Structure formats: structure tokens, C-alpha cells
């Protein structure tokens, strides 16, 4: 199974790998959601949606449906140091 | 008719004319009041002209 932002737990970080769809809104990219950038899940709203993220220093909220389209690589605890 | 009554009629007509223009012909009203058509109804600058 592919890992996406929607699979992160609160407080976890990861690196954006790519998108599983072509129709990722350009606005999201412009706000810094680009492959290679780090993403941290800051908060999950009640009822598990939407998600509050810190992507590369930008603080955004996206819906779970969008988050499922953004693939990630987990950062291993040891590597991050 | 005394002068007061005549003035009353003028004021009432002015008020009536204003309302008619405001709701039926907002553009004409803007022209009369010398505005640049920006404050017609429904404009974003309108914050309460119900």
C-alpha cells in the first residue's frame, strides 16, 4: 500500500514523494506542496477531517480526500539526525 | 395653502422620488448624485443599504 499524508499520525513528519493523480490543484503546489519537501501533520480536526499540515513552513488545511493523493516517504527516526 | 404646507409637499415628493429612483433606476440616481456608479445596490462597498 502506498503511504500518503492521510496515513500520518498527529505530530509525525514525512517527505513528499509525488502525487497519485494528475489533477492536484496548482494552488497546493504554489503553497509549497512539492516533491522533496517535508510535511508535518500538526492536527486532525474532529471527525478525522480536514488535516492541518505544516508543509515546508506553510501552514495549511486540506481535506482527507486530497491528502490521500499525496504520496510520502516516512522519515526514519535515525535518519533525521 | 400656507408656506409650510407647500414645503411639506416638496419634501414628501423628494423623499418619494428618491425611493423610486433608488429601487427602480439606481443608475439614474447615481448620475444625479454625481457618483461614478460605484455605489449602486449590490456593490461590494454596500454594507447595509438594505
Amino acid at each position, binding site marked *: 500500500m502506498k503511504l500518503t499524508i492521510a496515513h500520518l499520525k498527529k505530530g509525525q513528519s514525512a517527505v513528499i514523494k509525488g502525487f497519485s493523480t494528475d489533477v492536484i490543484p496548482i494552488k497546493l503546489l504554489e503553497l509549497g506542496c*512539492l516533491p522533496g519537501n517535508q510535511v508535518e501533520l500538526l492536527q486532525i480536526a474532529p471527525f478525522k477531517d480536514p488535516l492541518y499540515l505544516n508543509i515546508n513552513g506553510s501552514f495549511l488545511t486540506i481535506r482527507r480526500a486530497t491528502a490521500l493523493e499525496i504520496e510520502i516517504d516516512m522519515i526514519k527516526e535515525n535518519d533525521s539526525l | 395653502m400656507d408656506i409650510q404646507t407647500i414645503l411639506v409637499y416638496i419634501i414628501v415628493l423628494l423623499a418619494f422620488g428618491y425611493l423610486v429612483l433608488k429601487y427602480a433606476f439606481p443608475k439614474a440616481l447615481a448620475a444625479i448624485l454625481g457618483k461614478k456608479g460605484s455605489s449602486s445596490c449590490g456593490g461590494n*462597498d454596500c*454594507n447595509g443599504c438594505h
Partner: protein
Amino acid sequence: MSKQINVALIGNPNTGKTSIFNALTGLNQRVGNYPGITVEKKEGLCKLSRGIKAHIIDLPGTYSLNATSLDENIVIELLLNKNDKNYPDVAVVISDVENLKRNLLLFTQIKDLKIPAILVINMADRMKRKGISLDIEHLEKELHTKIAVISTRKNTGIDELKELITNYRELPTEQCIDISTIDPEYFGGLQNAFPNQNLYKLWLVITQDVNFVNLDRKLVDDTSAFSTKSESELKKMQHQETVKRYQFINKVLQGGYIIDATSAKGLRASFDRILTHKVWGYVVFFLIMLLIFQAIYEWSSYPMDYIDSLFASFSEWASNTLPPGTLTDLIAEGIIPGLGGIVIFIPQIAFLFLFIAILEESGYMSRVVFLMDKIMRKFGLSGKSVIPLISGTACAIPAVMATRNIDNWKERLITILVTPFVTCAARLPVYLIIIALVIPDEEFLGMNLQGLTLMAMYVLGFLTAVFSAWALNKVLRVKSRSFFVVEMPNYKVPLLKNVVITVVEKTKSFVFGAGKIILAISIILWFLATNGPRDTFHNAESIVNAQPESQTLTEDELATNINSYKLRNSYIGIAGHAIEPVITPLGYDWKIGIALISSFAAREVFVGTLATIYSVGSEEEDTIKNRMAQEINPETGQPVFNLATGISLLLFYAFAMQCMSTIAIVKRETNGWKWPIYQLVFMTGFAYITALIAYQLLK
């Protein structure tokens, strides 16, 4: 040299653009509209040195030149059209020191259009707390620009910015990105076809789904040949462009922008922990709303009582001092109470806008969007619908326009349709006076009962909006897809100047916009109430005197009888009696009926109308509230404004669509009469039925 420089302020949302605009122009600004569309256009004048003036346009906030909304289209339409009279000589791009990387994306795009651009790095006062240090010289060199570091909070850097604007001719116009590197073959062909055009401009014309009304039509048509690439290919190239821009920005910032992470970590995390918490978040939201309504009710009651009695004594003074005659009557009974009906609402409206401005400025509004999105979606709305629904408490018109940033058409349409249920400022005066009359002024659980009732009315409006949204979501068959991205701005203490300007502007536009209508209606009503068509009106005195029971009355009682007989036979009395059969089941008498009819022009006219009708009918001058309290139903001998009638009226005003301007704006935003007519029929019908049920149960 007395040339005027055209300056455009451009920047991402939440970068403090408005603060800079206010700092440059002060109160020397004008808010209007772009022709044909209802996007706010803010312009102002700023005096520079050596007698030069700058004409400053505050463009809508945008993240990039790839427009996705009507507001953003404005920005690129202006920047691509050199013939526009507002085409900027210089662009001032505002960035926020904490989000510099993202803000620079837009900056590089503007540079690539070869428009002279100054970079403003705003909110410099936060640098130290966030551990940020800047190498301005390095940044200026790499970005080919001049930089002004500003703190509107500390009031530093504005003079430097003015100086840079004055000398805008010295700005370099090098581009940041060579867009042709994305696809040399494609862009090479494009440049060959249009050797005289800026390549990035051509690219924007091709990729943007904007109706370039004012732009060179020929250019648009000619470039259409280059749209042959499939939409997804163009999209991919836009993605590559964005990646390229970020690569450039990262390289630039490496040498000039350092964040010491150890000293960072601000208030955001700790505030968010509470304000977006799944329990505390809602508790705080509810408490804030409660505070607002208690404040509007409690605090503003003092100036309101004062204004009310002031106008009553002013009326009395006028009728005693001026020479007797009809004009004096008009002034004392029509104009002065009419003016009072406007001025009395200033305190509440100012308070309401004060709170809305603070919520927006502080960054709290986005947290509410985050908290509410999932819940709202169950009702077919979006988290972003919360902003229209909250600003609907001021006025449905700006609220309907605020739905524009909802990307999904169905969610947007539903929001537009239900927003008028939200209790707007125009309903407030009606609620206040009826609550004051029928709800006892007692404490309940430590809260003022009247304040609680007012809060309940707001909750009712909000719930009705939400549940009709739910019903519409089931009924409507509208297809649309969308995405949802909301920025969560930093928390900020609202700038006093911004808040004050908002409150002053909004209050002023209420007084001079709605005020004129209220006054005109008061005058006409007075006239209709003091004139009548038949002999029964003109001979009122002799008819009443001839009645057998009149012989036993005192002089005062007789005068009152004559007055009410006259009123009943005036134009307005005749009209009121004509509609009585329709409104009697709701518990209203014909006087309330008249107020109801005039309310269709504007709800807040209700109070002024009753004030005028009652003041014509009575001998001495009194406050509006006292007059209404004294009205007695001749059949039952009970006060007209009892609990049943009061609740029935509250419900009618809560649900009925009584606002011509809202109908007009809904027509505009939905492109046709279909939706506003549904709204009018459904809302007013619903209002009638609920008011009917309430009165019949309570009486």
C-alpha cells in the same frame, strides 16, 4: 515634476497588505468596485517627497498569477494590460517575513512580466522572536530588486518604502526565471511567432482561463494556436514552472535568509492546541459568540437609551419652539423620529463590526473553518461557508459575495441560498425592541434573560441556515468537483488602526446608505398617516364629537380619540386595514402590518415605521420603546406587544426574505432570477407558517 505614479500593492493573503495600504494612505482612501463585477477595489493617494503623488491600488490577495477565482483574475488582468489607466508604473509586492519563501513565488512571476517591482518584507517585528535573520544586500542582488523592511506594528520602514516608490525608475527589470527552459522547443516556437512579446506574458495568456475583456483581443486569438497541447500537458508544464520557481527561491534564500530554529516555536502551537482542540475548540468558539452577543446587548443599551430619549426630547422641543403648522408637524413627528431610528443603531452596528474585524484580523477565523469543515460538509456546506455565515451577521450582501472563495459550485450555491437566514444587523434593531418589550429583564443562571433570548435568535438563524442547507443538499442535483486548501495564518494581535478604519467605514455606510432610505420612508409614512382620501378623515373632529359617548370624556381623552379616528381613516390606516385579514392570525394589528410592508424595502425600517405611526397617533412626545409598550389592543384591553405577538414577530423576521438588495445580489451571483425567486417564496412562506403556529400556540 508633478507626475502621479501608479502603484499596485500585490501580495499573498495574510501578509498585512491592508495594513501597508492603510499606512500609506491613511483615511485618504476610497472603496469602489471594478466595473461590471463586484470585486472590491481599494484606491488611495499617498504624498511622496518633492511633490510627487502616488495613486495606490490595493489589489485582491493572491498566491500566484495562476488565477483560480474572480478576485485573482483582477490581478492578472491589470498586470497584463498595459493600456489600463491603472496599469502600475511600479508593483509593490508585500511579503511576510515568516513566509518569505512562499511569498516570493508571486514576486518572481511579477518580475518575469518585467514590471518594476519593490519587495516589501513585512512584519519585521516578528523576526527576532522567530529567530530569523536577513541579508538584505544579498537578497536585493539575487532578486534584482530593492527591498523595504517594514513593521506596520512598530511603524518602521514606511518612509523607506515611499522613497523607493519615488525612485522607481532606478529599479532593475531583470527576470528571475527563464521560462523557456521548461520546454525549449515549445517556447522557442512561441517566441518566434510573437517576437515582440514577453514570453511569460504569452504563457499566462495561454494558460489562464480568464476572460481578458480589456486585453488585446488579437493576442488572445493568435495565441490560441498554441493551446494545442492537451490540458494535462499544459498543467504539467505549470507544475514544472512552479518547481523551477521554488528551486530559484531556495537558492536565493540559502544565502540571505536564516532561521535559527531553536529560538523559533512561537505562540502558534500553544494557541492551536486549545483553539483547534476537538472539545475546547468548540467551547471557545461558543464562548466567543456568547461574549459578542452579551456585549452587543449589554454595552450598547446605554448609548441607545440615551439616544432614544435625546431624540424624544428633541422632538418635543421642535414642536414647542417652531411656529405651528404642517411643516413643524413633519419635522417633529416624521423627520426627527425617522433620524432617531437611524442613529439609535449606530452603537450596535459599530460593536458588531468591531468583533468581526477582530476575529478576521487575529487569524482566528481560519481555525473556525478548520474545526467546522467536516461538520458543515454533512450539510452540503464547506468549512469556508463559516465565513459567509458569520459575516452574514453583519449583512447578507457582503456575505453572499464572500462565498466566492468556495471552489465547489454546489457548496457555494447552497451557502448563497441559506446565508439570508443568518441574523443580519438589520434584524438586530427589530429583535432588540421586541425583546425589550416582551421578555422580562431578569437574571437567569447569572445571565441576562434578554441577552440570552437575543443569542437564541442568532442560534435559531444559524440552525435554520444549516438545516435548510441539509435539505438543499438532498434535493439539488448539481455536479461539481473541487478541492479545499485553506491557509492557517499566524495569530496576530489586531492592529488598532485597521480595526478602527473598518468600523468607521462600515458604520458610515450604514448611516448614509440605509439611513437615507429609512428617512425617506419615514417622511412618506408620516404623510400617508396625516392625510386621508375621504370625508371621514377631514371631518374626524366633528364625527367624534357627535358620538354620544364623547360627551362624558375629558378633553385629553377626546383628543386622543380624534387622533386615532383620523389615523384609522388616513391612507395608511385604510391600507393597513386592507391587509389585516392576512396578518391577524399571526397576532398583528394593522399598524404592525404597515411596518411589515415597509420592511420589505429594509428590515430596520420596522422600528422607525412604528415610531412614526404611533407618534402621529399620540399627543405627547415619548421614546419609541415607551410608545410601543403603551399600545393597547382595543378589543382585548391587553398590550399589543405581548409574549405571543412578540415571539410571532421575532420568528417572522428571523425567516422572511425581506431585503431587496439581497435579492439583487443573489441574482447577480447566480446569474438569473431563478434562485432569488425560490428564496423569496420559500423563506417568506416558511416565516408566515412558523409565525402563525407560534402565535396560535402561545396566545
